């Protein structure tokens, strides 16, 4: 991205000056000069399009890990007021509705556990259905699937997948309200058959990581983290059901926007007013998909616990937090001194509530919400905490962000060679897709250290711990 076209507001915040007659709202870009320079110009074009959507409140915002997406940029945040004609956009949520990360803390020390990492990797790979075409063991009839869509992780716990205590540490206690299974197409439900409790592919993973560095002792203690401890991160979403809802409503909302006279500079921004019949229909379906994703990660948590128990009988895995990064959520935010209910789209962005937020579990209320920035399989991930300095509708970065396209990555790396190289570095990869491994090469991603550091310096969240991967099950 050419920084000449931007105005720097402070070291880590930039804006795109408005041309005269330009009716769009403000655009804000969080990031350092090097991170922004490394972004495609399309990021700026896409977020400027978002800023022109009806009912936007404040600014259309990008996070430090932003990259070129479809419709919204990945790492895009936008809040809309339903009472002022605000819209909801399928393109602002994405196909993988409620894709997110469940992080589990263990009572295991990496040094003690290390001799069994190979065995653990093999057993996890055998237990966790991962990759294209892989199905799970759970087959639900239509009535049961509707219960998943209404109950989310709470449904899963009732079926024996995990513990009640998990729910305290899942967004919305594991179940969002407003889900309408009747708004989900039959094809979407059929696509989910065999996909409950599966990881998926692409950038999805289940990773066993070691806490290598603590940045903030007080918060780490509240999160139950210490150096040398093993933690597990599960990155996946709403699977085929969510993908089909995205598909169904993309076309429907594109047509609704056209009929309602909403100008879409990119048809992928497909949207309708929140209060319109189409907007309400999508909201009901999207909330159903969020519950599907929360149930999916709950089931995977249960499967992971079972595998750990086989290898480490003394293992205890507690949910640290479960947070989605492809959603639209109704939340209260203070804007210009007034508290307003807003629909906050976060596409490739994580919610990051500040200390004291009433929706945080008691354990974390004094330190802020746990936030997870997932890195590549060869570098590492960060756990951060929400801050009161956040001015981005309580949102922050969600990952390292791609630095190179998948096609370019395929030209640079060979999957098998990469896996062997990582194994020599002490990182065990298990995958059925050599193509997928090459596309997900650590070198194809931005420097996660830089993203996390800038996220902290920009006041979006503060670093708590750095996690180094040891075992990675790739989709």
């Amino acid at each position, binding site marked *: 991205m050419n920084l000449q076209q931007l105005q720097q507001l402070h070291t880590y915040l930039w804006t795109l000056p408005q041309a005269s007659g330009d009716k769009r709202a403000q655009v804000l870009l969080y990031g350092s000069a090097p991170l922004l320079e490394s972004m495609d110009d399309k990021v700026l074009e896409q977020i400027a399009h978002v800023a022109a959507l009806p009912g936007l409140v404040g600014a259309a915002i990008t996070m430090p890990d932003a990259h070129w997406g479809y419709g919204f940029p990945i790492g895009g945040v936008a809040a809309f007021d339903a009472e002022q004609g605000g819209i909801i956009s399928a393109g602002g949520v994405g196909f993988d509705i409620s894709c997110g990360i469940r992080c589990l803390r263990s009572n295991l020390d990496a040094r003690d556990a290390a001799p069994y990492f190979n065995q653990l990797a093999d057993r996890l790979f055998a237990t966790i259905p991962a990759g*294209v075409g892989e199905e799970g063991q759970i087959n639900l009839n239509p009535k049961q699937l509707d219960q998943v869509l209404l109950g989310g992780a709470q449904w899963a716990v009732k079926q024996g997948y995990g513990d009640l205590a998990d729910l305290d540490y899942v967004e919305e206690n594991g179940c969002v309200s407003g889900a309408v299974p009747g708004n989900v197409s039959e094809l979407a439900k059929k696509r989910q058959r065999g996909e409950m409790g599966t990881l998926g*592919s*692409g950038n999805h993973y289940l990773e066993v990581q070691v806490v290598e560095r603590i940045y903030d002792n007080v918060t780490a203690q509240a999160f139950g983290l210490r150096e040398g401890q093993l933690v597990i991160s599960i990155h996946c979403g709403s699977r085929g059901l969510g993908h089909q809802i995205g598909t169904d409503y993309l076309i429907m909302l594109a047509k609704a926007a056209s009929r309602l006279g909403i100008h879409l500079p990119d*048809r992928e921004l497909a949207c309708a007013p929140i209060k319109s019949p189409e907007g309400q229909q999508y909201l009901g379906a999207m909330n159903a998909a969020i519950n599907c994703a929360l149930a999916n990660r709950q089931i995977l948590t249960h499967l992971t616990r079972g595998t750990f128990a086989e290898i480490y009988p003394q293992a205890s895995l507690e949910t640290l937090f479960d947070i989605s990064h492809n959603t639209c959520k109704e939340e209260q935010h203070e804007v210009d001194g007034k508290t307003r209910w807003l629909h906050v789209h976060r596409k490739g962005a994580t919610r990051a509530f500040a200390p004291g937020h009433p929706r945080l579990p008691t354990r974390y209320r004094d330190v802020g919400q746990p936030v997870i920035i997932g890195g590549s399989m060869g570098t590492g991930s960060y756990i951060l905490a929400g801050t009161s300095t956040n001015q981005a509708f309580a949102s922050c970065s969600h990952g390292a962000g791609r630095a190179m396209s998948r*096609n370019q990555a395929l030209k640079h790396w060979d999957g098998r060679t990469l896996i062997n190289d990582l194994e020599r570095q002490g990182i065990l990869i298990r995958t059925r*897709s050599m193509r997928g491994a090459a596309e997900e090469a650590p070198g194809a991603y931005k420097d996660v250290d830089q993203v996390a550091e800038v996220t902290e310096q920009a006041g979006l969240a503060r670093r708590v711990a750095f996690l180094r991967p040891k075992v990675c099950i790739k989709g």
Partner: protein
Amino acid sequence: MSSSYFEHDADIGIIGCGLTIEQSFEAAAHAVFAIITNIEAIRPQTAVALEFEEADLELALVVWLNLILGKARELGMVFSHFHIQRQNDHWHAKAAGEKWHDGLERGVEVKGATLTMLAVKPIGPVWESRCVVDV
């Protein structure tokens, strides 16, 4: 007919070319499923009939690609052969392939076709259909 790809940061841009609109749609479908597996190894053992209504050519491409992706997932299959015909706004199609099994190469799951960089247009004597697919 030919299929190819174009650059996109997070996902993959697919291109299908053919002498007719229908051929370009078939080539686009080929490009999509070649991301999912080694499409040359997929035998057309089972055929599935599909149909849809769409007047807008560009939206029809997205509907077509998402329909075959959805059908493949629903049936646990991967497709390699495609045929589509247009009668006014009505599209009749057939996709053939086989069920997933251990011998098939696992590529990357395609979640859906998007409206980003979406275009269906003639370029000289050839029709080109393109869009970004989410992976």
